[in-house]
């Protein structure tokens, strides 16, 4: 696929940055407002998917991008796992919330929960992107 017209491409480029930022906002405020790692991660993936849809799947279908998405996904879930294990090693409880809780309704509060949300956001965003890329690669693979 070659992608869409110049108008669509330009608008998609302009908007995808905003969508990306909004995804990050949702992830970071997961413990304060509705949403969180999962919802934010999907919005982040949406920003990339929008770019690929407008630019065409040729740009997306490199093996290295798939690898990077796969590593991003694994890193996200690995961060989550490390946080859980930290609780086990320091406080002898899996998933112990070991950081100070802070004041309610502040961005830096709720202990490890924002960090967990970041991990989940990375995982979900990268995984969804990886799935999308894999489907795009499969499509071009058939044509050969």
């Amino acid at each position: 696929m070659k992608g869409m017209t110049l108008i669509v491409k330009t608008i998609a480029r302009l908007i995808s940055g905003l969508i990306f930022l909004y995804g990050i906002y949702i992830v970071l405020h997961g413990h304060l407002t509705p949403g969180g790692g999962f919802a934010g991660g999907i919005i982040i993936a949406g920003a990339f998917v929008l770019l690929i849809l407008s630019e065409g799947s040729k740009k997306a279908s490199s093996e290295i991008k798939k690898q990077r998405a796969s590593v991003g996904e694994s890193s996200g879930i690995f961060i989550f796992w490390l946080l859980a294990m930290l609780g086990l090693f320091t406080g002898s409880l899996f998933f112990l919330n070991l950081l100070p809780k802070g004041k309610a309704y502040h961005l830096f509060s709720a202990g490890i929960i924002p960090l967990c949300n970041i991990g989940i956001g990375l995982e979900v965003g990268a995984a969804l992107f990886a799935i999308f890329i894999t489907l795009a690669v499969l499509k071009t693979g058939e044509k050969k």
Partner: protein
Amino acid sequence: MNLIPLFIALPLGAAFLLPILRYRNFDKQKTGQANPAVILGKWSKRTPDIVANLINLTLLVLSLMVINRGMLVYKMGGWEPFKGIPIGIYLVLDGLSVLMLLIINSIGFLAALYSVNYMEKYTDKTRYYTLFLLLIAGMNGVVLSGDMFNLFVFLEVAAIASYALVAFGTEAEELEAAFKYQVMGTVASGFILLGIALLYSFSGTLNMADIARIINQQGIQGTVLFVGALFIMGFGLKAAIMPFHAWLPDAHPSAPAPVSAMLSGVLIKAIGVYALVRILFNVLGLGETKSILYILMVLGIISMVAGALLALGQRDFKRLLAYSSISQIGYIVFAFGLGTPLGFLGGLFHLLNHATFKSLLFLNSGAIVYATENRDLEKMGGLLERMPVTGTTATIASMSIAGVPPLSGFWSKLIIIMAAIQAEQFIFALIAVLISIITLAYYLKVQRLAFFGKLGQAWKKTKEVPGLMCASMIILSLLCLGLGILLLPGIKSMILDPAVEVLKNGAQYANLILGE
């Protein structure tokens, strides 16, 4: 530090770590230089082998450490019960879980050891071990979970990993088998989820002990029986009991041999039989409901008979083993259906024994495929001469599964038949004996066609498989020879008796966990 979460956390962590480690390797291949963003150690071709085997060894050691520790309840995140009502997620380690953990992690370790050489034929070892570790994490989670919904989540983790593992070869046959398996598996999960939802609406809780307590108080009503039926369908599909077995003869032979060993040896028991008896007997408290027990018994007998008769006619070695799995699962379910302590003992012991000899047989079939690229029994012949280790271990496993004394399979079948006679199910006991003879018949057929007789022209240059594969087959065959000692009084009271105790206690499970 509490050991219980490690059973789930360790394999999960390793599964997440492996793809990160692999990235550096990939970049080096493509661009000729290492990716500076990755600070983790130097990659070598052996890294996934080493990581996966170390993790599996650790898990095996951990599961040996928890033997005879009594009952341990682990409250996730430190959420204490509120006014006696549990609010957090519980992990429960009791006798039955210990037995299952031992089976899962020992067979898992040996299968991973076997994979080191065997999986060289396939392209992507990292991905294989990632899925393999997820499978183990899921099964460990199922046997440890004390919460219905978590049990379902872990069951899905294990099941989805197994769908991908069945399709690992990505040939047409494997993809078809995996698709069939996935459809059937999803139907099963649907039944299970529906059952859990009904149970939740009935009791208002998802904690297994709490559900058991509420059912104790309210008595067994229609809802509970209906949920029991749903679980028999759902977990029966996962365990491949006869009317729900159609996916197994396709899925298990198509997977790579160590995965077949895990699926047939462990998975159908951990997410099928274990989950079924745990929920029916401990949670729903149906251990004394005659109708449910009778259903289990009849389903067991049907799969026992039909599995064995279908296995007789197979030419494909792995397919024969798959039908034999259905037949042996029939024995196990039948034994549980008797509902007596001796029946539980026989069922659990046969479950353990079947895990060892069936995984050994699948590893043997894998060794033959590795050496000769052939699964058709009719084309084999005289392989004992060229592959002494494979041949000898396969003979031991065949004799054990057919119930030749003094091998392990004999003792467990003896207990099952004794239990059937004790429960005055004489006809079923007779059928069990007859099927045991048919089992012997089709394993003798395997022996004659594959290992004895004249060596085929094509196999004159066949070599024995590499050392690690032999090592894991030899360890398993020693287990087949020696597991009978588990019935000696001192050892029996450490491993088998606590597990039988859990099932015998039935709905007392609630009081033990909630501590009333």
